[in-house]
């Protein structure tokens, strides 16, 4: 499994409790939008970000958080923060 696939698997596990559209979740891919596709309540996006921070031991600043609206953006931000860390 590539790093990207591992990240997607981790991200899927993180968003799972918050999703309200199972179908979109089952076919989750880079283009999946958290709010429009997964129907995550916008207030819960904050919780998704905190869960990501905990999982990867990173800190996501407000600016990055604003951009984290879909899987692709989330993966990019996680990768960037992980690179900064090591």
């Amino acid at each position, binding site marked *: 499994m590539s790093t990207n696939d591992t990240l997607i698997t981790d991200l899927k596990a993180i968003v799972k*409790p*918050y999703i309200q559209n199972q179908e979109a979740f089952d076919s989750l891919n880079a283009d999946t939008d958290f709010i429009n596709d997964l129907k995550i309540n916008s*207030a*819960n996006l*904050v*919780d998704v970000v*905190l869960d990501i*921070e905990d999982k990867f031991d990173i800190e996501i600043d407000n600016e990055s958080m604003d951009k984290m609206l879909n899987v692709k953006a989330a993966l990019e931000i996680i990768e960037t923060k992980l690179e900064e860390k090591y």
Partner: protein
Amino acid sequence: MENRVVITGMGVVSPNGVGLEAFSNAIQNGTSGIEYYSELKELGFSCCIGGTPAISEELKREYFTELQLKNFNSSGILYGCMAGMDAWKDAGLSISEDVDFESGTVFGAGTSGVEKFREAIYKLDDKKVRRLGSTVVAQTMASGVSAYLGGILGLGNQVTTNSSACTTGTEAILMGYDRIKAGRAKRMLVGSASDHGAYVWGGFDAMRVLTYKHNEMPQNGSRPMSASASGFVPGSGAGALVLESLESAVERGAKIYAEVLGGEVNSGGQRNEGSMTAPNSEAVQRCISNAISNAGIQATDIGAINGHLTATSKDFTEIENWTKALSLKGSDFPYINSLKSMVGHCLSAAGSIESVASVLQIRNDFVFPNCNCEDLNEDITGLISEDKIPRTIVRKNINIVAKASFGFGDVNACVVFKKFED
């Protein structure tokens, strides 16, 4: 035209019974919900006993989704939602996909989510405000319980929370009643909830108003009207009633538990002997007599009184106020009981849990027993006959119950329930 208002559903989450059936059995059997809590002892409480509803993780999941339970830490909202959802279902109402503009809620609370608030304060003080997550506001805002219920049930009429200390639950019933009577809603889910535990009860322990003499025998600790009453036992939980216009109830073919005839709320203004913590007797008497006249009944019509009666020295004063307001004493006085002898003082939830008990008495023809007053206070029996303070259940047709609650801030509420007759 003013609407008649009836009760078509009830739900209750009480220290001595969760769910209407369990609660109904418990109050008829005089089952206590008071237990010893070692955590209170460890925290240095003088009173280490209290009442908390027993709710399994499994039962929670019958009411809440996993997502709702994620980072959930508000016992009052838990109890309130369970009681409210039960009452709604009991009334034969379904949860619609659409908003229901004819239905609302007045669901009271004293505090909301104190444990959640504590969690948040620790994080804040640790400079981790950004790590609070999304759930702090909804669980700690005073209106948390009505906001949750409004969302779960899709309520589109007034959705609000009232707060008037230990009067809260009884006041909520009268607020919902007024709204339906005036034709501004068809149905109002009314009730109240109280968080459990040290962070709610601590302030009362500090005031030395809780009993510290019964830590060894928790179930004997709550002793309203007893000569050995030595302070109240704190409780928690929630009670809920669906109030509905008679027209709507008949149209739906709903079962009717009882009619709400009316009542009164007032305050003693913390004047005369009234204060933040003590009632002004003139106001209490006025509240009761206005409730009787607003309900359009005579004092002699009352079959049973459900008192506030917390098990402090004020029990005598309360009885004296009832005798004066009703101009009835001795053997002419109606039956009187206090649910607090079984569940303790459930604070902001007291008025609604006790109202559910009051209405069950009308529905099922009984007066539930007073526990822990085998040694009745002689000043009280000097005013009213002993046999009006039943220590065992009385099976009897009960047509009208007057229920009163009094709270900090010198606030009073009295509601009158009557067996429904077309």
